[in-house]
Structure formats: C-alpha cells, structure tokens
C-alpha cells in the first residue's frame, strides 16, 4: 500500500512538471496555431541558468539566498528568452504558412541545443538541489519536500494561470485573439502584444518547470529539453491542444503512465508507452480528451 501511494506521489510530481510544460505548448498553439518545438529547450536554458547561479554564487552567499536568486533568475531568463524567440523568429512570419513557422520552431530548437553544447559542453552538469530540506512523514509514509513543493507550486501556477485567462482583461484579450484575430483587432487589441504576452507566460511556466525538474533530477544537459518537450507535447495533445485544463490533465496522465510502467519494472519501455499513447489518442480522439472538434467553415 505504501509503495502504491509512494509511486502515486512520484507520478504526481512528474506529472505536474509535464503539465507546466504542456501548458506553454497549449497556450502558444491556442493563440497562433504553432507547435513551438523550441519550448522544451527553454527548459534546458532555465536549468543551465539555475546551475550557473547555484555553482557560481554559493561561495559568497548563504544557501537560501542563492537558491532564491537561482529560482528568480531562471524564471526571468526563460520568460525573456520565450518572448525574445517570438519577436525574432516567429513574429516576422505572422502571415507566412503554418509550415514555415513549424520549421522555424524546429530550427530554433536545434539552435538552442547546439548553443548550449558550445557554451557548456556536451556532458551533463549536476545542479545542486535547490529545495534541500529532506522529507516529512505522513503516517508511515515518507514524502520528500521536493515532491510536495513541486506539486504545490504547480497547482498554484495552474490556478493563477486559469484565473488570469478567465478573469482579467489581458486573459480575455488572449482568448479573443485565439478565437478571431481580425475581430480582436477591431476591439482595439494589439495582437502582437497579446501574442508576446502569451509566449512570456508560457515560458515563465517553463521556467518554473525547469526549476522543479532540476529538483527532481539534479542535472542539466543540452538535450534534456527535447525529450521533456516531446512528452509535454504528447501531454498537450492527449488533453486537447489549446485547452488549459486539457494540458494539466494530459500532463498528469502522462506522468502517471510513465511511473506506472517504471514501477512494474518496464522502465526501458516508458518512452515507447508514452508515444504509443499519443498514437492511440490520435486515432480514436484526434482532438484530445478535452479538445473541441473544429468544424471548418467553408
């Protein structure tokens, strides 16, 4: 029983990281129908940012301060990077075919990976644990603070995002642009500003995700973002791409599936299973669990 609950907590921890990353995928897809394949690599940059602060400042400052700076710095870098990529690589292609945009995204992804390899080398860097406060007990169960904090932070982030999109004027502008750019402009909404904001928010969530990922796996490598990004993409598609609750649901579902497969001793199969899920979903429910069927108007 304790093992089951233990595995469940692992699943939630992993799932919430996937969910945070999937949210970025989903939001960007929702607003400009772009599968931003560079999104996973933003996490990689965030992880290196955390590593850089944790290893370079730890001799001058107390641990708590370094950890706090690392968190803020890493989220800030991700936010700026995401918004910057949009401005430089995607904004000039606003009226280009979707395919050009997709290829550009793949290009940006490779650019970031190779850039990181050039600067930091191909090997993995070990990131000191940012949340180094051990674990606590619930009955007979031992729960690590890392797991608990990952889950709490993710849930808070998702709640804030949901409220932001539903209740604020900028959130409404985002929904308006995603539904009908032309009409949104007639309401006096600047679509470029709204799209930049969407990228910034999605990337900030990726920044939070990168910190939580580092807490769980304690390393940064140039290619860490590609697999993480792909799985988050699967999560977004599974939940219904473009839908915020869908991304969250998909993230947790993928986290659960992976943990389940690993816990029965088939961990070499876990990636295969995740992508098998993608294929099955695409066959039976192409719009995802919470996705809306799009009726093309002629």
């Amino acid at each position, binding site marked *: 029983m304790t093992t089951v609950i233990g595995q469940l907590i692992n699943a939630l921890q992993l799932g919430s990281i996937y969910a945070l990353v999937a949210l970025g995928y989903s939001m960007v897809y929702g607003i400009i129908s772009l599968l931003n394949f560079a999104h996973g690599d933003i996490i990689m940059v965030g992880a290196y940012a955390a590593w850089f602060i944790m290893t370079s400042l730890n001799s001058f400052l107390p641990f708590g301060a370094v950890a706090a700076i690392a968190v803020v710095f890493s989220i800030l870098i991700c936010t700026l990077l995401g918004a910057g990529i949009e401005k430089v690589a995607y904004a000039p292609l606003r009226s280009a075919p979707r395919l050009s945009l997709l290829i550009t995204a793949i290009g940006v992804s490779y650019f970031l990976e190779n850039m990181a390899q050039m600067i930091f080398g191909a090997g993995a860097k070990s990131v000191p644990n940012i949340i180094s406060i051990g674990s606590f007990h619930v009955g007979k169960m031992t729960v690590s603070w890392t797991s608990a904090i990952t889950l709490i932070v993710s849930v808070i982030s998702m709640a804030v995002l949901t409220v932001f999109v539903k209740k604020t004027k900028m959130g409404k502008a985002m929904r308006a642009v995603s539904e009908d750019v032309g009409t949104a402009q007639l*309401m006096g*909404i600047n679509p470029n500003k709204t799209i930049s904001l969407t990228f910034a928010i999605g990337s900030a969530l990726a920044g939070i995700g990168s910190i939580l990922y580092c807490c769980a796996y304690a390393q940064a490598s140039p290619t860490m973002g590609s697999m993480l990004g792909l799985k988050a993409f699967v999560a977004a598609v599974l939940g219904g791409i473009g839908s915020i609750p869908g991304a969250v649901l998909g993230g947790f579902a993928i986290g659960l599936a992976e943990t389940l497969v690993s816990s029965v001793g088939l961990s070499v199969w876990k990636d295969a299973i995740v992508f098998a899920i993608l294929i099955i979903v695409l066959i039976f429910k192409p719009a995802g669990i919470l996705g809306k069927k799009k009726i093309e108007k002629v």
Partner: protein
Amino acid sequence: MNNTKMVPVPSRSIIPERDSDKAPILEAFNLGIDFGGLTAVDNFTIAVGRTEICGLIGPNGAGKTTVFNLLTNVYQPTRGLIMLDGKNTTGKSTYQVSRMGIARTFQNIRLFSKMSVLDNVKVGLYNSTKCSFISSVLRLPQYFKSEKQANEKALELLSVFDMESHAYDEAGSLPYGAQRRLEIVRALATNPGIMLLDEPAAGMNPSETWELMENIRKIRDKFQIAIMLIEHDMNLVMGICEGIAVLDHGKIIAKGDPEQIKSNPAVIEAYLGKKEA
C-alpha cells in the same frame, strides 16, 4: 452655399443641418483599392456628420463591404485618404484605428462564440479597462476596481438591448437576432465616434427589423455617435438614413437624402437594369 458649413467641398456631402457646424467624424477622399488588376473600389469620397445615420447601398458585389474593410484599415487603400475625427489613418493598423474611434459589425456574425455574453462586451471595453499586468496577476485592489467598473459598464451597455439577463450565457448559444444585437453592443463598448453596421437586418423578420430601426435611432441619440450601415432592406434604409450613398461597380453613382435616391434614374438603373427603349 452656406458659409458656416465646414464640410469640405469635394465631398458634396449630405451632412444633416445639426452637424454642419462641426467637422465630420469620418471623411474619405478618392479612396480606392485594387486587388491585382481588379479595381474593387474607386473614387470613393464621402463625409459623415457627427450624429448622422447614413446608408451605403448598392447591388451585390458593388464593393460595400470592401469600403468597410478600407475604413477600418483591414485593407490598406491603394489610393486616397481617410480622416477619422480629423486624423489621417493612413498606415495605421486595425487596432489603432479602433482606438481612434471606429467600430463595426459583420455581415456574417463574428462574436467570440466560446466566451460569455458579458466577456464579449468586456473585450470591447479592453482599452477603457485600466489595469496593469502586475495588478491582474497579484489581484491588487486596482484589479477588483477595474473589473467592477468593466462589469457595470458592460451590463449597462447590454441593457440598451435588454440583454442583461443573458450576460452569463455563452455567446454562441444565443438566438440569431440576439447575436446580432450583441455584436452591436460589443462594437459600442469600444467607445466609437462612428459605428459601421454591415447588414444589421439580415435574416430578420419585419417586426424585428422595425425594432432594430428604433434601436439604431436610440443608440444614436443616447451615445451621440454617427452610424453608417450597409443594408438591402430598403424600408430600413429609407426609414432611418438621413444620407445615402449608392455604390455600383466600386463607384459612387449617387448621393442624397432618401427622396433624392428613390427618384434617381442612375440608382433605378443599377438596381433594375436599363429601361428598354
């Protein structure tokens, strides 16, 4: 010629007497657009008074909706000039001219159909809602204050059409006539000086059309704005428009008040064809 009129000569306008001492809200000079080799609109010159209700009519394919797209900078004109509230709109994007005071509705309704009725209106209030990003995320007092104001304003606007009770329904689920009305409310929310209505009575029965006419007048009186409409329903056009411009093959073939238009031979010919000799 009355010297107090500030209406520029080339418009040879039909601005109502009460607006004639004020500069027009909207002027277009020799506006034209080509699509490839095709001239869709040419030499379109018009002036609209501050509180005028005017009509743009013409046979199908005459270029009426193209004119609306030009006036809202959805299309950039090939030739000519648009002055909105005395300011040149050349090179501005749609959201900028929207902020300068022009709003429109569409022939085929384009609501944010997945959003609530209230949220549709609040999107229209986007620029008058003052709330920073930080206040929105952290839910500072400014957020609650601005949201409360936007809610009140939105409900007040909805009440023009007695639609407050539908405020929380999904916009796409409203009946057709209500969707048309909501589109007008949403356009009003952007606080325009002139509102363009593209076939507001399309698909309405005579009693709904009559009600719409009353409402268009009511909106003009209450908000003191100009309204320009494209419409095929001649009862509506002749009933509420003070000035009418007739478009055929992209050119204005007649301008005048309803009586003049009704008896204009060029208009009759455009609609009914040439009288056989």
